């Protein structure tokens, strides 16, 4: 399952956890757990917010991890 997720990530593009869960025949929560695992393993990294770049941005709240409209983001690390 994790191997399949890594394959999807390495294929590139923009992926969404619910769509990934459908592809892997599992739940979005398990996909999130696996993404966190891959983050700890250094395969992907997450973005909590955009730092000072958010100042003045109308959508900055979307990156605030404390709110229900949080949009967690991860990005794959470049392959060696």
């Amino acid at each position, binding site marked *: *399952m*994790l191997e399949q997720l890594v394959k999807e990530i390495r294929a590139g593009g923009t992926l969404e*956890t619910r769509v990934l869960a459908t592809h892997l025949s599992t739940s979005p929560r*398990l996909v999130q*757990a696996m993404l966190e695992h891959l983050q700890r393993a250094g395969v992907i990294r997450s973005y909590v917010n955009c730092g000072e770049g958010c100042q003045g941005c109308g959508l900055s709240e*979307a990156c605030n991890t404390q709110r229900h409209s949080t949009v967690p983001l991860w*990005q*794959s690390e*470049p392959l060696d």
Partner: protein
Amino acid sequence: MNDCHTTTVATRPFFIRQNMPLIALAGQPNVGKSTLFNLLTGLNQHVGNWPGKTVERRDGTCSVDGHQYGVVDLPGTYSLTANSPEEIIAREFVLREEPDVVVAVVNAANLERSLYLVAELIALPSPLVVALNMMDVATQEGIHVEPEVLQAALGVPVVPMTATRSTGARELICVVQETLDAHSAGAPHLPEIRADHRQVLAEIAQHIAGHVPQPYPAAWVALKLLEGDVEITRTMKTALSPDKWEAAHAVLRQHDDALLAIASGRYEWIGRMVRAAVVQPKIGQVSLTKQLDEWAAHPFWGLVILAGILGLVFWLTFTVGSPVQNWLATRIVGGLSNLAGQLLENTTFWLKGLIVNGVLGGAGAVITFVPIMVIFFAAFGLLEDLGYMARAAYVMDNLMHLMGLHGKSFLPLFLGFGCNVPAIMGTRVIDSKQSRLLTTLIAPLVPCTARMAVVAFLAPAFFGPRALIVSWGLVLFSLMILVLSGSVLNKVIFKGQRSAFIMEMPLYHLPNTRTIGVLVWQRSLSFLKKAGTNILAMSVVIWALSVLPGGDLNHSYLVQFGKFIEPVGRWMGFDWRLTVALITSFPAKENAIATLGVIFGNSPNAGLVQTLTSTFSTATGLSFLVTTMLFIPCMATVAVIRQETNSWGWTLLNIALFLVISITAGAGVYHLALAIGL
């Protein structure tokens, strides 16, 4: 839990081992492990450091029904791989000290995350009991966990509890005692790895057989070698003879993908456990989100819906916002201008001009934007709170991929709808310098709120009832130019680089009116602050240039400058006034309106909108709107481009690119509009 307290002072584990059964509490961070430890041991605990480490060590004692137990709080760990000092300490303790029972504390509200450590602990020799903690949180989130079913699926005892409410701890210790009495680790159901890797695992086990140092179990060591565990690899390299090590290492080298295969097996095991024991939350909300996303996140229909929503926002703006804006312009700002003109009749010409034409004509015109901005802010706030904005960005990115654009430009695009400044900052997420520069170049093509507000203000002036369709078309046109520019640049420089961007879209939910209200208030206040400072200053400068040196507009510096650059404006059908308005939008996009306000002045009978309607043709209006949408980014954005690229060359190239795009598009649209008789 008072029953759990003894009168003895806490001692080191080796001492506890001599007198009473030892319980090790293991778990991931933030699952309530320390709360449980405190509940069990009360004041009978000792805090220090693990030998040779700066990691905190806590141990203590507790007693229940006359039985005494030593309790050790292991460091919080996600797994038993040697990724961190905490993980090494936890696994070395479990393997070397051989606690009589290991209690794995898991979060009932997120078993998917918590069970990975259980998947590792369950394979070790010490008997395992699972403390299903945070049951209250699970209930609050609508997650129903069935402990009996989980127990049957895991093959080890499971005890539901809520440590923060002191419930379940006594039952946990009772189950620990039953496990101790049984003198058995039970019949746990272990995770499996893929068949081809099982063969490899057996091969490695064969190579290391008879050489595994105590107290490590041989099967566990073979698995950790296959996982590429650094510590175990080092240990076995020392323990094996060079020939044996070379043979084992040769097998490992051929299967360096085994780490994923093993972890994958564990996640499949977790999936089975969760499917068996957990009823997922808020089925209605999840299935509603799923159903809505079949359309909203669809590669084609998602774009149609996005276009429809944008159209709806503009319709609201023109139906509700524009009449209020017109009223403010004619009755309030126009009325104030009239009143100020009368009051200042006998003062100096410059004071009257400054107040009536500079302040009220310029900044006053921009303040009439407020109803339009409020509608924009409320609409985007509503969509954001509803959970739709993430879908908008997702479907846009799908389109960009179809056009060959790089996926990493997603985040800048997402931010750009609000403001181009954070959009440029957002390009920091891109690793490759070339990709970052290219995304920086095209990100300002996403129409920001300020540009959309200018369009919302001017479109009714030039197009009357057709303003809605024109505004909608302008936004789509702008995005189309972005896609085309990006496609060309991507083919030239990205050269097929691929990486992934993974996002988690929030569930749809009913918007919170207070949240939206606060958001609209804060953003409107911020807009008014901008109108009262930067835009006001620019209005005064424009007014000063319009009256200097002799007090006559026709011979002013502004007109001289406008006439000088007018030939370029003519390509797009502009006279000197529109050309100057366009150029003054560089400091802030809203200045285009302020400048037109200063140049045309205010009248109590006709606001700026009406004046523009009677002055310019439809073709000129359309060309002006297109050019404004695509014109060079505002000064703040350009400053950020300079900061992020650290190059004047790239900054000037960006300005040049937008000048070429906007002038070409404006001129093209103008001549096309004339050709079709507009």
